[in-house]
């Protein structure tokens, strides 16, 4: 009996020691949304996603340092022609998206950041671009480029790596987000909101055909041919500079059945 009690106490201690500190209290709230355009089973599509971050008090969150976006199983990368060229990170940072081949563009978006001084509703970074970067260990790499002009004049490039996933999710985009200082020597800015696309919408690629440069629309990643019960799941986890973390999930509804 005393051995059983000792084992119980040991097990309880083990469970407590394995529980991550961030699980004790979540100080940030996250919301995630995702959609497909078009939303048709088996069709190449543009993935539209975005997230909003804030503290439980409704304030700007600590600076974001890590983002892991998980995408549904069955997304078909087999025939996509996105990312036919590669953009070098140094060229992207030096010249912006103009320094990248047109055929490396994957999507675009915008972000809302908050500087940790003064009072304001945040400041928009109107230009966030996604391009294909050099692969790492065989994994697809998405380079994000944000061009902030005012009040934060900073151009930053950071990479997300597409890794295989398991279960309900087929792949995940793991991204380490660099810190952006608001002013030289000042505190880092907080990312409040990001909207972005990954897909062919509004993208134009070029190919050479019989000696002529011909424009064409790339083919996107295809939506799974079957929709799981409840829709296509998306999930994201967020890590912050102060070591805290939070997560959010959403689903894209199954498209209506075609008659």
């Amino acid at each position, binding site marked *: 009996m005393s051995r059983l009690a000792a084992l119980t106490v040991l097990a309880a201690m083990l469970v407590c020691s394995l529980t991550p500190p961030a699980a004790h209290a979540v100080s940030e709230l996250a919301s995630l949304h995702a959609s497909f355009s078009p939303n048709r089973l088996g069709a190449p599509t543009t993935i539209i996603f975005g997230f909003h971050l804030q503290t439980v008090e409704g304030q700007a969150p600590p600076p974001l340092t890590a983002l892991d976006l998980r995408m549904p199983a069955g997304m*078909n*990368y*087999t*025939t*996509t*022609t996105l*990312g*036919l*060229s*590669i953009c070098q990170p140094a060229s992207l940072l030096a010249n912006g998206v103009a320094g990248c081949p047109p*055929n*490396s563009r994957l999507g675009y978006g915008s972000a809302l950041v908050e500087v940790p001084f003064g009072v304001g509703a945040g400041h928009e970074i109107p230009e966030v671009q996604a391009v*294909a970067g*050099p*692969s790492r260990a*065989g*994994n*697809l790499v998405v380079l994000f480029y944000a061009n902030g002009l005012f009040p934060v004049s900073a151009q930053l490039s950071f990479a997300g790596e*597409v*890794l*295989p996933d398991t279960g309900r999710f*087929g*792949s995940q985009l793991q991204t380490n987000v660099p810190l952006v200082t608001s002013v030289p020597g000042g505190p880092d800015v907080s990312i409040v909101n990001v909207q972005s696309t990954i897909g062919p919408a509004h993208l134009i690629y070029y*190919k050479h055909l019989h000696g002529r440069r011909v424009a064409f629309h790339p083919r996107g990643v295809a939506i799974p*041919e079957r929709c799981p019960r409840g829709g296509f799941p998306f999930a994201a986890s967020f890590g912050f500079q102060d070591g805290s973390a939070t997560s959010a999930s959403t689903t894209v509804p199954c498209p209506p059945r075609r008659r």
Partner: protein
Amino acid sequence: MVGVERDVSSHRVNRRTAFTAGLCVLAAMLASVSPATALASRTFSLNETGHLHLTSHHGFTLNEQGSALGTISGTIYIHLHVVSTNRVTAEVNIYPRGGSLTGYASASYRPSGSVASFNGTMSIGRGSGRYNRAHGSGLSFTGTIQRVSDAVTVHVNGRMSA
């Protein structure tokens, strides 16, 4: 009675002679045919290059057809199945004259710009005709996919028995 015994003995001699002659003919035949058709299996190096084009795709599978050149030549078919963002499996069928070979491969898959490459191993699963005893494993299976046209170039190298 004696005469009958002589006849039986004579028949035995004739059958033995015929059997010996048959063996000689068989040996001559075996010596004249290619190694792959020999009754005893023989190990040899396979070094194949295939150039294929897309014939259809269904879901995660690209169906490709083309020609293989190398140790054995013939029509080649590959069903390339993209398992995940960085892994493919493949069924490879080669139809040289007088038989066929079927192999199964698993490889890492690395899309990079307009070309995706794969690198892995293949095993010979079965054969028919001249290659009905075909077997082998751990053969190198590498190649590229042109992402615009889905044209595939594949290299298979290694030792196999047939």
